[in-house]
């Protein structure tokens, strides 16, 4: 197991190097705005542009730039400085991370709890009204794009400009860090959590329902009933225990992806997280910032994969890694 984890961690490093390289290549191959031009402002003096280009190292060949970047990164953990405003990329990312983590984890709790509950009830009460209503709602939630759902919910319910304002749904741009004011932090994130969680909850509910229905026809469920266990225990301890493993996998990966930035939700609700940072840096052709956010996202994804695989070994005793 330990050897397996070490091997996987080495692969994580290889993957990250690969991702950074690809980001670099993509940035140079595909046409983008000239960072030096953007930095120089309106109607710049050509000399100034050249000066900026030289200062940022943009006059060197791209592979030289990549090598310099990687050298700083590996030797000093230095992600470079924004082309746009000279801020440290690492500092920027750390400043933005709490907002993204708040958004992702809060939404994850919400969608796991609701998705699992609805999935179990729908499976147990299959073909009843409650099942049909839940699954119908789930289909709508899966089909609704998050930016549409976000805008509609702001339009309808936000405290500032909603048609039917709900006081504890603070509107877009109201985010404050938890350390500053937990109450406003919570109220500002409540609506984004719901919006972001909706599609995931629906997906998980459907997945769990399908799994559980299948599991409930397994022989070992019949054994559990033959033992005389109460039906509740048969479902929760024997059925859900088996049916939930794919949910754990999906949750690990989805949370991993979201930790790298929930671009749409963060943009709609104007939450200053990693997603917004990535979006802005792409707008500004700000390569170091793009690299930083892409690497962070890639790290979360590959790391989540590793965690999921390890957790799986604990969930299913038949799985053994060597």
């Amino acid at each position: 197991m330990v050897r397996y984890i070490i091997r996987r961690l080495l692969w994580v490093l290889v993957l990250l190097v690969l991702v950074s390289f690809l980001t670099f290549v993509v940035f140079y191959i595909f046409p983008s705005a000239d960072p030096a031009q953007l930095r120089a402002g309106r109607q710049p003096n050509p000399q100034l542009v050249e000066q900026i280009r030289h200062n940022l190292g943009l006059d060197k060949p791209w592979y030289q730039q990549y090598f310099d970047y990687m050298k700083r990164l590996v030797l000093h953990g230095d992600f470079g400085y924004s082309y746009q405003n000279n801020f440290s990329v690492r500092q920027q990312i750390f400043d933005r991370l709490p907002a993204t983590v708040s958004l992702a984890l809060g939404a994850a709790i919400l969608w796991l709890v609701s998705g699992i509950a609805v999935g179990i009830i729908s499976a147990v009460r299959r073909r009843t009204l409650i099942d049909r209503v839940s699954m119908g709602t789930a289909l709508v939630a899966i089909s609704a794009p998050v930016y549409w759902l976000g805008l509609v919910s702001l339009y309808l319910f936000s405290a500032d400009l909603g048609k039917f304002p709900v006081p504890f749904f603070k509107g877009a741009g109201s985010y404050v860090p938890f350390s500053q004011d937990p109450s406003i932090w919570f109220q500002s994130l409540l609506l984004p959590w719901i919006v972001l969680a909706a599609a995931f909850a629906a997906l998980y509910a459907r997945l769990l329902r399908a799994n559980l229905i299948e599991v409930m026809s397994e022989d070992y469920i019949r054994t559990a009933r033959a033992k005389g266990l109460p039906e509740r225990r048969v479902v929760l301890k024997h059925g859900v225990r088996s049916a939930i493993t794919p949910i754990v996998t999906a949750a690990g990966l989805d949370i991993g992806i979201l930790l790298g930035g929930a671009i749409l939700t963060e943009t709609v609700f104007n939450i200053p997280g990693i997603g917004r940072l990535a979006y802005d840096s792409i707008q500004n052709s700000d390569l170091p910032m793009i690299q930083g956010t892409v690497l962070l996202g890639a790290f979360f994804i590959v790391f989540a994969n590793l965690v999921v695989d390890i957790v799986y070994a604990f969930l299913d005793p038949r799985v053994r890694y060597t």
Partner: protein
Amino acid sequence: MSPSQLLQIDDLRVDFATEDGVVHAVRGVSLEVEAGRMLGVVGESGSGKSVSMLTVMGLTRAENATIGGTATFEGKDLLSLSNDELRRIRGNDIAMIFQDPLSSLHPFYKVGAQLVEAIRTHNDVSKRAARSRAVELLKLVGIPDPEGRVDAYPHEFSGGMRQRAMIAMALANDPKVLIADEPTTALDVTVQAQILDLIARLQRELEMAVVLITHDLGVVAEHADEIAVMYAGQVIERAPTDVMFKAPEHPYTWGLLQSIPRLDRPRDEPLVPIPGRPPSLIALPGGCSFHPRCPYVRDRHRRVDPKLEQVPGQNGHLVRCLLDTQVRRDLWGELRRGRLPEDARNRVKLEDSA
């Protein structure tokens, strides 16, 4: 009901509504088993043998199932008990083991934990006490190193060991009735005999009533006291085991016996399969449900539904067949001499096709 009968099933009927029509899975089955005795229930897949027993356990209760008849256990009709009342009997007074021991044990829980759960469901004992009882049970069913194996997962057990563990689980609460649904079908032949011997030994030691469901007459030959042969949801013949093998009365039973390889016959003697397939339980044939496959069918058999009746002069031997008793004896006599069903039919004068 005679007082010695521990479990008495009377006129059990089970229908399942499906999209293709109503499946008449069990059509008026009556069986009983006494304490300390083993009843073998034999039949092909779809003959209703498993469904009958699962229904007694309440495991076929579903929206699409219609259940009729009675199943009396200790003065209570199991079929009319509430789910919760039946649940308290299930796994406690009446226990069941199943065909495939790998899929019947939960893959994610240790064998010991599954045993402990069975014990603690019906007994208010500490985890520690339940665990030592679990070890005891594993020892009882012949699992070597029970203290070590109690914490193993089912996939770490061999097929035979898994079935032993299943049996241990069934025995957890000293059941009075053990229903074994094809307990050896998924096992290697060598292991089959061990498991059957184990069940028989435990039955004697614990004085349980055992219902052994199988498709293989050979499996019940050695240990069962009585055998019931089922076909298309009905019992078609019932007799004490030695009678069933010596003087079977039903053409279907003859067919089953003739399709078993025997050591006391010449090795080149061909086995005689029963032609055809079991009938659809949705659209059953009229008359005797075995008539489409019966080599001795008469016209009348296609119209008249036979009743399960006592063989004249044979107490405890019941058969559901329209053939005349003497004709049946003659036919069996010919078959026993090694003749094929067609020869036997030609040599014995069957009644006229009235």
